[in-house]
């Protein structure tokens, strides 16, 4: 450490002496690279989908609140998001580069939220040394302001009940209730985030604002609605499995898997294959759309912020219902009552069935992205390419959302009601955002 400092100081000195100050340009690509890196780290650190949605949202809000100060197109979310106050105002005399401040604030809050800080630190260091080399004074002033805003946002953030929910009781498995969710193969993990409904929403008035109708009453009578839906999952799965891995339905199921922790066991050997979460997939789509229309930095921050907020409250709304209905997964019932060696095409994720989380957040994200980029916005979705999956093309965000929802039935992890009710629940969340939250002036 000591040696590094000795080494760096003369270097900085040289740079500051010889290089004339240049303007620092912070681009939308800088923003994408930070968001991408945070997404990667979340995969490494294994954050569950609801927690991941929170990690996306707060840094974006911090960045957005800074650019809203200078870009007259945008207005602050203070007073609009629950309990968010105005951030400190930037001193216009100090030569602050607000885009730079926005990215600094974003990185700073992201680091707070992830586990493996050093992995983001690498990117942070390279950006900072680049900027510092170009214009030390501007960099320092902008960084100081970004950190001040980050502190402000953190004060708001820590009051969202997240840390309290960490130590709340685990989900209780009750083996006497046949309809109640129980851990699923192969890892039999505990129910994830049973208290997520207690997290302060960003714009919902409460977690239960869009409480969906209950699922069909649990019944194993052959003519009951519930049993028919159970059999439908089983039948669809068998049919498309017979059609092979290249069938459209299997392709759709795998494309939208978005399971951050798929447990693989081979004897005593275990490992996890990890992917991005549903929220991260839609953040990826936001990047694709922003790039397609060459969004500038401010517009990019706006798009990320809006999408991530809709997704975050989508999860809160969905998880509220999941741990209200506590419904058992199709895999458990099919194994018990129909076929003891049946496996779903996707691995069943570790939380109750109703409603489908991917359906809810896809519904919500589809609504706000359509508002940002317009309807019938065609795009090539290459988000999953790094995970060995192909590119899929969509004619609109809502079409993609519909496909994401139905993919959960194809995957054998959800009944129809969870998918259909779920996407409506998500669209209600998205529409509420559009109604109540004004981000654009005019």
């Amino acid at each position, binding site marked *: 450490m000591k040696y590094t400092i000795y080494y760096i100081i003369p270097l900085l000195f040289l740079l500051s002496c010889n290089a004339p100050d240049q303007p620092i340009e912070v681009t939308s690509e800088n923003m994408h690279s930070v968001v991408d890196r945070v997404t990667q780290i979340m*995969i*490494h650190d*294994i954050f569950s989908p609801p927690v991941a949605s929170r990690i996306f949202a707060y840094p974006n809000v911090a960045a957005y609140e800074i650019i809203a100060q200078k870009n007259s197109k945008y207005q602050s979310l203070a007073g609009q998001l629950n309990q968010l106050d105005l951030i400190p105002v930037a001193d216009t005399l100090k030569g602050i580069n607000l885009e730079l401040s926005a990215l600094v604030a974003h990185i700073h809050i992201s680091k707070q939220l992830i*586990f*493996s*800080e050093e992995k983001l630190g690498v990117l942070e260091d390279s950006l900072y040394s680049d900027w510092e080399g170009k214009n030390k004074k501007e960099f320092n002033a902008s960084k100081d302001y970004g950190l001040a805003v980050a502190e402000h946002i953190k004060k708001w953030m820590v009051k969202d009940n997240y*840390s*309290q929910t*960490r*130590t709340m*009781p*685990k*989900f*209780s*498995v*009750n*083996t*006497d209730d046949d309809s109640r969710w*129980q*851990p699923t*193969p*192969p*890892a*039999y993990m*505990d129910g994830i985030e049973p208290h997520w409904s207690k997290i302060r929403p960003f714009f919902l008035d409460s977690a239960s604002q869009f409480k969906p109708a209950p699922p069909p009453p649990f019944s194993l009578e052959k003519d009951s609605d519930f049993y028919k839906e159970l059999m439908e999952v089983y039948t669809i799965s068998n049919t498309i499995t017979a059609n092979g891995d290249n069938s459209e339905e299997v392709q759709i199921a795998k494309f939208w898997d978005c399971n951050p922790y798929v447990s*693989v*066991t*081979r*004897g*005593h*050997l*275990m*490992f*996890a*294959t*990890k992917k991005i979460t549903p929220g991260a997939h839609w953040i990826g789509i936001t990047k694709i759309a922003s790039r397609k229309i060459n969004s500038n930095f401010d517009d990019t921050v706006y798009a990320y912020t809006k999408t991530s907020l809709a997704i975050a409250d989508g999860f809160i709304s969905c998880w509220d219902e999941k741990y209200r209905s506590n419904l058992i997964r199709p895999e458990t019932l099919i*194994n018990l009552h129909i076929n*003891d*060696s049946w*496996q779903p095409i996707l691995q069943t994720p570790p939380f109750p069935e109703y409603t489908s989380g991917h359906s809810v957040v896809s519904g919500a994200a589809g609504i706000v992205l359509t508002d940002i980029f317009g309807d019938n916005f065609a795009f090539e979705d290459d988000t999953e390419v790094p*995970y*060995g999956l192909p590119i899929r093309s969509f004619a609109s965000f809502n079409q993609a959302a519909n496909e994401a929802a139905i993919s959960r039935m194809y995957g054998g992890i959800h009944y129809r009601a969870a998918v259909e009710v779920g996407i409506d629940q998500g669209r209600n969340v998205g529409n509420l955002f559009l109604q109540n939250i004004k981000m654009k002036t005019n």
Partner: protein
Amino acid sequence: MKNRALVFLMGIVLFSCADDKGSVFKKHSSSTTNVGFSNDLTTTDNLSILDYLYFYNGGGVAIGDINNDSLPDLFFTGNQVKNKLYLNKGNFTFEDISAKAGIEGNSTWNTGAVMADVNGDGLLDIYVCAVVGLNGFNGHNELYINKGNGSFQESASAYGLDFDSYSSSAAFFDFDLDGDLDMYLLNHAVHTPKSFGAANLRNQRSYETGDKLLRNDDGKFIDVSESAGIYGGINGYSLGIAVSDFNLDGYPDIYIGNDFHEDDYYYLNNGDGTFRESLKDYFGHTTRFSMGSDVADINHDGLPDLISLDMLPDDEMVLKASEGDDNIQNQKLRVKNYGYHYQFTRNMLYLNQPDGTFMETALQSGIAATDWSWSALFGDYDQDGEQDIFISNGIPKRPNDLDFINYASNDNIKIKLNNTNLIDSEAMRLMPSGSVNNRIFQGQNNLKFKDQSKNWIPNDTLVSGATAYADLDNDGDLDLVTNNINTTPLILENLTNNTANYIKLKLFYKNPNRYGVGAKVYSFANGTMQFKELFPVRGFQSSSEPLIHFGYGQSKTIDSLKIVWPDMTSQTLKNVSCNQTLYIKYQNTAPFEYKLLHKKIKPVFAKVKSNLGIDFMHKEDAYTDFNRQKLIPYQISDRGPATSVGDINGDGKQDLFFGGSKYIPSQIYIQADTTFVATKIASIQQDSIKEDVVSVLGDFTKNGSNDLIIGAGGGDFFNEMAPLTNSYYQQLKSNYSAVSFPEQFVNTSVILSFDYDNDDDLDLFIGNQSFTGDFGKLPNSYILKNTNGAFSIDSDNTFDTVGMITEAISEDFDTDGDLDLIMVGEWMAPKFFENNNGKFTLLNLPSISKLNGLWQSIIAFDIDLDGDMDFLLGNWGENSKFNASNAKPLKMYYGDFDKNGATETIVASNKNGTYYPIDGLGELSSQLVYLRKKFNTYTSFAGKSIDEILGKERLGLATILNVNTLQSGYLENNNGSFAFVPFKFELQTAPLMDFLVFDFDKDGKEEVLVGGNYFGVKPFHGRYDSFPGALIKSEKDIKLGNILGLDFMSKSVRHMNIVKLNNVAYLLVTMNNEKAQVYELLN
């Protein structure tokens, strides 16, 4: 410089000596032995640990004299390499005769090796198991018939033994006692990602994976598995087999160790060609990832005891970085919904009991954690008369490393793993090596084993699997040979030689079982019995030299040797000199009465069939403490039910009150003429919400009828919730009505009625155990003074933060005429309060003040028969992952470590001088989330002390509670001063929950009955289920319940009471989550 080099060189020489030689065993290298065999594994794109789950299980080893030159020869199987046979040329040199002998084998993947005289011609043949039909493996199990000229003929198909299935091992023994050797074949299942189906999958036979029992019908082996009652399902991962006459009826029984979720199988031989699988009847719990096993009588009671191996590491660096036990909810699910038995990840040592049950003591015996263990071999390696244990160890790569599980698939590796089945070098690199030392433990005549791994055997970093013993140099002591992965076999010469005495027996039984497989030998010397059975297949994938070996320390003669042959005849040799090899021919035999082996059981108690009409079944509610208070050391919600015996309906006869758990009403049984009858008293039973933990019947109002006081607990209701308050029901003319009672909001544990102020009414002591949600905070306890039937707190006698009380008794220990008070509890020492005119004062008793324990029970009893009162104390016992001593107490750190306004407890115990938390990172961070940021990987957490984990600042916030002893015992009263005397081993196997004094055997003198066991701990700790109860007549006369007719094993006793029906006394035993038991007193 020169000198330094010299010193350096000498150092190397010293080290290399030390590497080859321990104090008992010396390693012979392949360069001198000529044993160049090496089980080299070749990983290919299509074959690795990813493709075949047992890629690292290793080959087999079999030792026996194949050419009748009295020197045992060595046979090794290679998984992928050719088998090898080495002739013993003496002096630890061997000659490779593999090619000539024709035993190199034709299967792709060989596993277990057995030597047995299969065709009954007096020559040892060789059976080689193979895995066939998986991963392109071909071939079949091979039987090499010994032609007597140094060559062998593969003849498996002629004998019906050419199985092409997933075999791991086989054992030859005569299960139907028709004189010839039959065979049990172990096959293993192949894992699917679908972890467990219902346990009854084992009923559907599968050729490839199911075990088989083959009956030898005149040289043809017939598959009788199904009719004999042998499971052969797709979920049996059979790796271990132990054959022994466990129940001593003359017929060999079988214990099969199954890996993964499948239960082990305990097959008792019916003697009619069939078996009954009886695991759940006789074993409270078993190993989870069962591997090898072995049998020997380790405590000289003539009953074969059993060890089964698992893979629990003891090194903190490995332990905390490895996947551990199930979580508690999954365990419940698996047991309740899927029908499996309790299984835990650690070695198990099962002590065979006279009633056929097994007492499991591996933790207490010191052999629970030996890492990735394959083979266990009992043997008296130092010849001191006690059985020692050699355990082979190691795995090339640890596939259950938590960082590997979670992070291996980070970058691009996961795609490869997932899409191509190829585990590349990068992924392999991320899996840490599991090459660890083999282990050896010295038996010590007290059921505790001393780890001599660093002393007796040379250090090694081998991956050793199959192991066999033999007397390779015919010097009388037991040498050891292991088959290792990727290196030559470990050949260990035993150096005991003439420093201790031995006898070695070779048996000559009737053909076709000429080696006497199944024979028993009893040795009597110096008043000690030793007992061995001849079943050469033992350990793991191996068979040892067919011999019987006993050590005698410095004794030179043996009073007698009794050989019991498989045909249930015996012969006896008297006054035998040590230090010789005896060749014992079957001759001059007399019939042997197996009945004589079962005379120990002399019941004092017998279950009453009708249960006297008391069909009370306590049902514990489903609440799991660890879901809410994730880090507490044990539950507090399962301490009920309350039990009281007394007249409830005013007819002068004893009735019964049983408390209910949360949301379950209490039950009342009224005594009728010949039985008890369940009765409703609405005013009492309408309160179903509270959990009734303790109760007292007494005439507190002095109106001639009993009143009822119930103490509430349950560990679920919290803060100032009404169901935490105690209840007081006064009786007036058979009507009970609730009246006010001093309010408190803690989990009550004791209500003791006694007249402390000598005003001739019954006052109360209320003892409290804990606060829900704030475990570790010390509650107050109280004296409630009775004033005309109303109770009020006696503010002159408060017991502020006296401790986590579990039991209290009133006793005039200073014999001044008033009742004094003694309290016991958890994380505290027993406390003696002297009563002086109604004022209690804590006595300062130096001998007791440091006796912090997890005390559960106390009673006054003159155990040393000297006329004064001693005090018997029930503690947690030593059969636990907790450990405690005065020098190294068990510590519980209590504080708000995550600063969220709620407290946590972290329990840490001392290992090699450092305190480590008992919980791992996963569990700790489920409560203390910030630890996930502090420790990014499991490796960074592993091996860290509690100080390093919590940090100075947070440690400073902690209150530390200590336990100095976990032993149960008694306070011996020596003229008013007390000395603590621990009970014997068998009474330390579980928490002792209750004592009862009565003259049970009607000999005119009182005894103490002890009940115990407790299950409220996480699967990492297991289940304290092994205590069978005990009857204490005196310090020297303690008998276990399993010879007295008690059915306490695997049940958790709460209360024991004497109940009189028509003036006949019965024993009533109340248990948690179990039906109440009623015993009549025999004699």
